[in-house]
C-alpha cells in the first residue's frame, strides 16, 4: 500500500519497536477506504520519530482536529517525498473533552505542523505538550472560547 508496507505492517512494526505502544487500525468504510492508525498518545512522539526516520515519512502535509462526543482527536497526513508515497494517516486522541486534553506536539518531528497545531489549540482547545510556540493564531489573546467545538455558544448578540 504505502512504502511497500500495509498499514497493518506499519502498525506491527511500531508495536514491536516501541514496547507498550498501542496502535489500532481505524478503518474507513467510504469508497476512498482511507484507513488510518490510532496511536496512543503516550507514545505519539516516539512513534512519529520512528515513522519519519525509519519509514522515511518525511513530510506532514496536514494536521487537523476533530471534535468527537467523548474526546478530541488530531489527524496527521504523512507523505514520503523520498519514496514518493503516501499518505499515511495517523490519529491521536485526548482522554476527554474537558480537563485532560493534552497531546504530544509533533512539531519537533514535522515542522510543518506548527501553525496547524496552533490552530487546533486555538479553535478546539487541544493542548500540545512540547510545542515551541503554543499561542492562539486566529483569535486574539485573551479570548477564552474554542469556537470550532460543537458545544461552542456564540456571545449573545441582539439577533432577532
Amino acid at each position, binding site marked *: 500500500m504505502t512504502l511497500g508496507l500495509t498499514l497493518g505492517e506499519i502498525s506491527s512494526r511500531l508495536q514491536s519497536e516501541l514496547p507498550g505502544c498501542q496502535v489500532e487500525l481505524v478503518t474507513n468504510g467510504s469508497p476512498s477506504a482511507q484507513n488510518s492508525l490510532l496511536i496512543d498518545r503516550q507514545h505519539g512522539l516516539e512513534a512519529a520519530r520512528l515513522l519519519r526516520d525509519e519509514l522515511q515519512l518525511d513530510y506532514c502535509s496536514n494536521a487537523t482536529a476533530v471534535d468527537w462526543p467523548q474526546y478530541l482527536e488530531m489527524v496527521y497526513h504523512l507523505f514520503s517525498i523520498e519514496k514518493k508515497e503516501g499518505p499515511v494517516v495517523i490519529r491521536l486522541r485526548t482522554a476527554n473533552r474537558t480537563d485532560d486534553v493534552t497531546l504530544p506536539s509533533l512539531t519537533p518531528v514535522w515542522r510543518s505542523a506548527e501553525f496547524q497545531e496552533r490552530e487546533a489549540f486555538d479553535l478546539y482547545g487541544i493542548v500540545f505538550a512540547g510545542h515551541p510556540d503554543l499561542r492562539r493564531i486566529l483569535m*486574539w489573546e485573551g479570548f477564552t472560547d474554542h469556537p470550532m467545538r460543537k458545544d461552542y455558544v456564540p456571545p449573545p448578540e*441582539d439577533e*432577532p
Partner: protein
Amino acid sequence: MDEQLKTELGKQGIFATSLQELYNWGRKNSVWPLTFGLACCAIEMIATTMARYDLARFGAEVFRPSPRQADLMIVSGTVTKKMAPQVVRLYNQMPEPKYVIAMGACAISGGPFRDGYNVLKGIDRFIPVDVHIPGCPPRPEALIHAFMTLQEKISNQQLTGAERPRHLQADEPSEFPVPAFGEHGLEPAQNDNVFHNPFKVIQG
C-alpha cells in the same frame, strides 16, 4: 432662491448661486477615498477606479494612503472582529467632514459569515454609515451608484439650522469608541449611539 428664476437668469447670462450650493458643489466633486480593502469587494472597488469604469469622472480617483487626507471610507469587504477596532480607529483618524460607504453583504450585515464566530455583523454597529450597497460583491456600477447617492447627500446638506451635518455641530462626536477584544467577543458588541437594531429582540 427660486429654481425657475435661477434658470431664467441663466438664460440671460447671469449666474446666480448661494454659498451653500457652491460649497457643497465643491465638496461633492472631490471626495477622496481612503486606500484600503478588506476582502474580495476591494477587487471590485479597484476595478471601479480603473479605465473601464473610471471613478475619476466623479472626482474620486485620488485614493489617499493616509486617513488624515481622506474624506471617504469605503468599507469594502468582510470586517472580522479582529479587524473591527482597526477600522474604527482609521475612521477616527479621518478629519471631518467624513463619509462611509459600506460595500457588500459582509460590510453591511456580516453576509454569508453572519452566523460565524469571527465576523462583525455589519460595520454600522460601530461607525455611522452613509450609503449601504448590497451585493456579493457589488458590481462597479453599484459602487458608482453609491457614489452618486453620496454626492446627492452631500449637495443636499444644509450649512445652517438644526439639520446641518455632524461636522458643523460642535457638540457632535467626530470620534467613536474603539471596541476592545473581550473574552468572548468585542466589548462592547455595538455602539448604541450609532447602531439601532431594526429588529425587535424576541425573548425566550
